[in-house]
């Protein structure tokens, strides 16, 4: 075999391996989604959304868990988004090329991929220990620390995409900077910032580790935000590891709903990004 043929052969092998690698990745996706659908769909009943989590052996649904999850995710978004947008604004508008800006960006990127269980421990020390009990508040704050870096990152990047002449025209008209930011830049970057919030929501709606020992769990309806509160991921965790078939079915139903919510949020944000991009071009 001459040199040319050997090079060709190596090229073909590399390409074949690359295709195999891609198929390898996609097979897992298909397998996991198929499992979630095939086990979750049959377990889906109306009672899931109207009944409370059952004790072993009894009939029930996941109503309190869904309510708890929605409540905590909502609060987390409400806490994390304004701070995140503020910090993103600082990075993009006030500290684009400063050293402090670079440091904060660096720290934010680390926060973005930091293990979520660490956030759980942090909030446990910060809130659960001083308050003396687990609560929905603690769960929401823990989740908000996951929302925060996502929103900071997207806000920063989206504001940077806004063309500089837009800022200059507004400033040239004598508009003060805070109004430029609020009325010109936020408006221009709106779809991007909303995308960031949706991405953050998608991430926290399935997060388990941070709420595991901040919100804990509750078999009943939590009457206030100061009580341990049921939430879907922790209920799934508990039920999946239990020996009861019916609890497994409920866990799969919960898993199916969470996966669908996450996928829909992910696709919506992807669509928003695609639409935003065409707007700029």
């Amino acid at each position, binding site marked *: 075999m001459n040199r040319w043929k050997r090079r060709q052969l190596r090229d073909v092998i590399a*390409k074949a391996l*690359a295709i195999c690698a*891609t198929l390898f990745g996609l097979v897992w996706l298909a397998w996991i989604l198929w499992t979630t659908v095939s086990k979750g769909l049959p377990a889906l009943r109306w009672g899931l959304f109207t009944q409370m989590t059952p004790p072993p052996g009894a009939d029930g649904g996941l109503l309190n868990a869904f309510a708890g999850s929605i409540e905590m995710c909502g609060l987390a978004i409400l806490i994390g988004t304004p701070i995140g947008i503020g910090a993103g604004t600082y990075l993009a508008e006030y500290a684009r090329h400063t050293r402090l800006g670079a440091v904060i960006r660096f720290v934010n990127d*680390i926060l973005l991929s930091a293990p979520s*269980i*660490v956030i759980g421990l942090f909030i446990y020390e910060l809130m659960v220990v001083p308050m003396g009990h687990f609560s929905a508040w603690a769960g929401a704050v823990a989740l908000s620390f996951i929302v925060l870096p996502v929103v900071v990152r997207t806000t920063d990047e989206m504001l940077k995409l806004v063309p500089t002449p837009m800022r200059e025209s507004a400033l040239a008209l004598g508009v003060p*900077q*805070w109004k430029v930011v609020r009325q010109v830049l936020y408006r221009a970057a709106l779809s991007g910032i909303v995308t960031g919030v949706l991405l953050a929501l998608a991430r926290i709606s399935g997060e388990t580790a941070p709420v595991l020992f901040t919100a804990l769990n509750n078999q009943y309806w939590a009457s206030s935000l100061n009580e341990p509160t049921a939430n879907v991921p922790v209920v*799934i965790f508990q039920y999946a590891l239990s020996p009861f078939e019916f609890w497994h079915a409920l866990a799969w139903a919960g898993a199916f709903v969470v996966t669908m919510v*996450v996928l829909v949020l992910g696709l919506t944000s992807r669509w928003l990004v695609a639409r935003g991009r065409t707007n700029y071009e």
Partner: protein
Amino acid sequence: MTDSRVLAPISVEREFERERRDRRNDNLFRYVVTGCALFVLISLLGAALSMLWGGRDALVTFGWQFLWSSDWDAVQKKFGALVPIYGTLVTALIAMIIAVPVSFGISLFLTEIAPAWLRTPVAAAVELLAGIPSIIYGMWGLFVFVPFMGAHVSPWLDEHIGPLPIIGPLFQGPPIGLGMLTAGIVLAIMVIPFISSVMREVFITVPVQLKESAYAVGNTTWEVVWDVVLPYTRSAVIGGVFLGLGRALGETMAVTFVLGNAHLLSPSLLQPGNSIAATIANEFTEADSPIYLSSLIALGFLLFVVTFVVLAIARVMLNRLARRAGEIA
């Protein structure tokens, strides 16, 4: 004329007031956003300090022994982190051995081989993998993948690779499906999208002229990727790998489901084990003594320090390419 002279001071006054108000609001706004940004900085520091504070009892009581000791005895109140550290490192290592070549293959496929119409949907599908919550990976792992490993893969490995010298002991074990290898594979699936999306993004940034020149002198696709694209993007590729490693080290729920939660130090990858994150998730609410709780929080602190270092390296490597790309552009 007289009118304007009368009016002028008022409007100047008004003008001043307006300017003052604008300046005040401007400053206020700047303080608020600066505060938000500093909050990000403080939260990371706060996380580290709060865990150090929570774990102080264990760290003071056991000292450096905490790192080397394999004790984990809730009754005698003796705790050491060796088993969880070992499990974390081994599972993450398995994950990287699988995920890095696969991610490279995927990004090679997406940037050089696939026809244009196929690139976006495949990239989107791979990124969907990143969006699936880890608890779903855990359930799938426990109910579907663990039985599969137990029925098909583990017995085969035990029978065929187990008797071999040197690497044999790695693959001897009961066909239970739970264990280091299973956890490593699940982790690999979870970090593939992160590594491959970084690789794909940086491969795209390679200047077209560079690649075209290589093609023009007769290089094959593989040679262009291996000898031009990869050297150009080396630091960012390493950054992407470390980013994936950071994820793999800290991943909690999926590992908790499939690792077996056994406090066992075994060379075999088919044996159940434990990882830092899984130990915390499993035992935190059951910890019945302050020193037990403190040991778990100290474990969390260790995990934080290790992932911080790994992620910091990732960031530095990624920024290096970004800076160079900026210089060229």
